[in-house]
């Protein structure tokens, strides 16, 4: 794609005819791409379009079967991530590559050549994290960090190395709007200093705001180039998915039904020394409404979800009332019998067993829907349930006998969401419904949540994507430092206000009480 008139000196990275074939699938076919110095270059595409594979080849994680790469005018082959880093290529992965048993500073040290002094490095981390608005404690163990915090570590780790090319794979999905602003400022500043940035995201408005040029991938091939500033999000989405994007219909909420979830001063000291303690959380959620809970990750969402789902029950039964049953001490199966459904943030390993088939994964929670006789599994019934789930929720897969880990993230999420919805819960708790899911699937999932609400289900959505919450919620509250703000009707608030609340600043508690009981 590079014309001969381009100034060779201006190109930092040039890919030509990159092809990567995996046994089952062609991940990239004849992809060409050129990134100039100081350019913020978007790579757009749905899940499975081959963006991540392409980035991994640039970063030396895998190697192309065909095609060449030029780095600063030199033809070369990136042998390994260490080689890439020595060239000045940094990457923030979508799936984090951190060692959970090590601290933040140790993880950063591992990516650096030689034997850096940890105390000195910790100071550097703090400096960079302050400069770019990415607060993180260098001494914390990574396993105790939330998804959002882990991503900050990844970003900081790259920034510490003063990269010439920074690859960012879906970097903003877990940041507050204010933090996204700050990150964008950082990225623009980096670009102005001459650093090139490859920016992968499905958030079209962000790409439009930030990126100079965009390359669109579909099914592993380049389907177009555009200048985002000259496009609309809709036109870029149709370039990416090849058709128009459905817009969710949000009808006027029906008359609220019975109270399906009530939290009465729910408090819990986190088992994790670096976790967030929940303090006096009050919620009243009725059938037929969606309550969204916004917040920057690591502010008590995990703890709240564990308490709600029953994976880690609390001591006071009356702190959590599910459909009239005091449930604080109940295990998850008891809560499900009382009408609760739950879609967790982690799909593989928690919401589904990676190595098991979709049929078996349906059994995970659907066993109570008359799937057992005398303790024996009714395989035909459960397979039929799985097939219905696949059909109704448009899950793209090889069939119900295929393993959960053979599905893309978005399709697995549709399957898990479908499984929980088909069980007809009175109360559905959903965490990060569309995290890492492509736009098409995300729109579908949101629509199904709205449909479910219209059928009278009470839905609690905890998400770090504000746009999403504003799209589907009837009321919205914010969790910060383990405390919950009052819930506001969507019409009475704005993204800006919620964004400010996300840093923990909302009205005095007196007003909060009034809202909670209002």
């Amino acid at each position: 794609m590079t014309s001969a008139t381009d100034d060779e000196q201006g190109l930092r990275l040039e890919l030509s005819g990159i092809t990567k074939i995996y046994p089952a699938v062609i991940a990239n076919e004849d992809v060409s791409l050129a990134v100039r110095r100081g350019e913020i270059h978007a790579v757009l595409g749905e899940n499975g379009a081959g963006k991540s594979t392409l980035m991994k080849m640039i970063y030396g994680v895998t190697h192309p079967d065909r095609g060449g790469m030029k780095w600063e005018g030199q033809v070369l082959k990136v042998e390994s991530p260490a080689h890439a880093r020595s060239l000045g290529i940094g990457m923030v992965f979508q799936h984090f590559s951190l060692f959970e048993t090590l601290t933040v500073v140790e993880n950063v040290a591992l990516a650096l050549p030689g034997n850096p002094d940890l105390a000195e490095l910790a100071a550097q981390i703090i400096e960079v994290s302050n400069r770019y608005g990415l607060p993180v404690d260098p001494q914390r163990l990574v396993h105790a960090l939330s998804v959002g915090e882990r991503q900050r570590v990844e970003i900081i780790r790259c920034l510490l190395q003063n990269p010439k090319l920074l690859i960012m794979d879906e970097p903003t999905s877990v940041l507050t709007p204010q933090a996204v602003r700050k990150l964008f400022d950082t990225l623009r500043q980096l670009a102005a200093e001459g650093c090139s940035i490859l920016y992968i995201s499905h958030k079209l408005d962000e790409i439009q705001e930030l990126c100079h040029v965009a390359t669109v991938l579909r099914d592993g091939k380049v389907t177009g180039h555009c200048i985002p500033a000259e496009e609309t999000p809709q036109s870029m989405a149709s370039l990416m998915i090849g058709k128009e994007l459905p817009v969710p219909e949000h009808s006027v909420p029906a008359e609220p039904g019975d109270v399906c979830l009530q939290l009465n001063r729910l408090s819990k000291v986190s088992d994790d020394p670096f976790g967030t303690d929940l303090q006096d959380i009050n919620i009243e959620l009725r059938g037929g409404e969606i309550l969204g809970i916004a917040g920057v990750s690591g502010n008590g969402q995990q703890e709240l979800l564990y308490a709600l789902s029953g994976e880690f029950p609390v001591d006071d039964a009356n702190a959590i009332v599910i459909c009239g049953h005091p449930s604080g001490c109940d295990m998850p199966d008891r809560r499900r019998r009382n009408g609760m459904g739950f879609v967790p943030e982690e799909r593989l390993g928690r919401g589904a067993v990676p190595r098991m088939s979709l049929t078996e994964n349906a059994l995970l929670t659907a066993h109570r829907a008359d799937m057992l006789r005398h303790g024996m599994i009714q395989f035909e019934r459960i397979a039929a349930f799985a097939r219905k789930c696949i059909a109704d929720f448009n899950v793209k897969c090889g069939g119900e006998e295929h393993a959960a880990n053979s599905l893309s993230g978005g399709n697995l999420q549709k399957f898990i969401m479908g499984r929980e919805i088909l069980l007809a819960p009175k109360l559905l708790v959903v965490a990060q419904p569309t995290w890492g899911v492509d736009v098409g699937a995300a729109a579908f999932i949101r629509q199904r949540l709205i449909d479910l609400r219209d059928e009278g289900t009470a839905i609690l959505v905890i998400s770090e994507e504000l746009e999403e919450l504003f799209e589907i919620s009837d009321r919205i509250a914010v969790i910060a430092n383990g405390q919950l703000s009052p819930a506001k009707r969507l019409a009475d608030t704005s993204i800006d206000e919620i964004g400010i609340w996300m840093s923990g600043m909302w009205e005095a508690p007196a007003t909060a009480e009034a809202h909670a009981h209002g």
Partner: protein
Amino acid sequence: MVKLERRPEASQLMSYASPLIAIALMLIGGLLLFTALGKDPIEGFKVFFINPISDSYGISELFLKATPLMLCAIGLAVGFRANVWNIGAEGQLIVGAVAASAVALYFYETESSQFLVLSLMVITGATGGMLWAAIPAFLKTRFDTNEILVSLMLVYVAQLLVSWLVHGPMMDPDGFNFPQSRLFEDSALLPILFEGTRLNLAFGFAVSALLVGYIFMFRSFAGFQMQVAGYAKDAARYAGFSAKRMIWIGMLSGGAMAGLAGMSEVAGPMGQITDHVSNNYGFAAIIVAFVARLNPVGIFFASLLMALLYLGGEQAQQYLALPSSISNVFQGMLLMFLLGSDVLINYRVRWKEAVA
């Protein structure tokens, strides 16, 4: 520099083939070993693997030896599938044997019916094994102790216990102070299945246990829950499956089957209890379970193979003048080659120049 690199996807076929590869490598290793020891490898191979099963009596002995292995391995596999690591089947077998022997000796010269005595022996044998396994299960669920260590340490306690008993309370009063009990009466001995052999009803127990185990693992919801826990602990918690219940099921099934194996030894080929009641069956069964990929059908065949190693070892001792530990060497080679193949299924070896 040699480096192990994780394969993107492990071959399903190879994971079933790896036990066979391990067996082949063990045979090759055995041939080399015989050669190194100055024996004719072909002759050694014949003595070790062919002679023991060259007649019908030999085959019956093979099944007899395989019986306690099948029982222990199926019980262990139930727990192993849920990552409940009961390493103490050896001790549970001993305690089961002790409990069953106590019944046999209690009814000595009481003229009770064989059915009554044997039924009670089966029940107490299995219960004895379960009680021994309940100790690590309780400590694990209550205090989160490591069940591997506790169950293993209890093996030595059990060995000392049986040693004390056969030197004391259970010693044959007319036995010239030999550390062994009276010979059981016929009413306390399992009926022989085929005249002229020692193969007894315990083999029927073992096959039934494999069948029940198969149904439990692949058809029952409890078995499904245990498999989920083995694959993904967080998913089991998410689904609300009780982790404690799985620890109990896993430990107790291993204990019950090991105890039954102990009963079938004292009420079978031994006919009394001595301090050599187990032949390391409880440990060998761990190898059996893994070679079998925790699958009941696999356990049937892996037990036969392991039994052949026992018999071959005895033959090698007799005809090749090799020490009895030759059996352990073969068992060890089998496990090592199996683990080695498994590593190579999941990883590939890369020879790399060190990157500066």
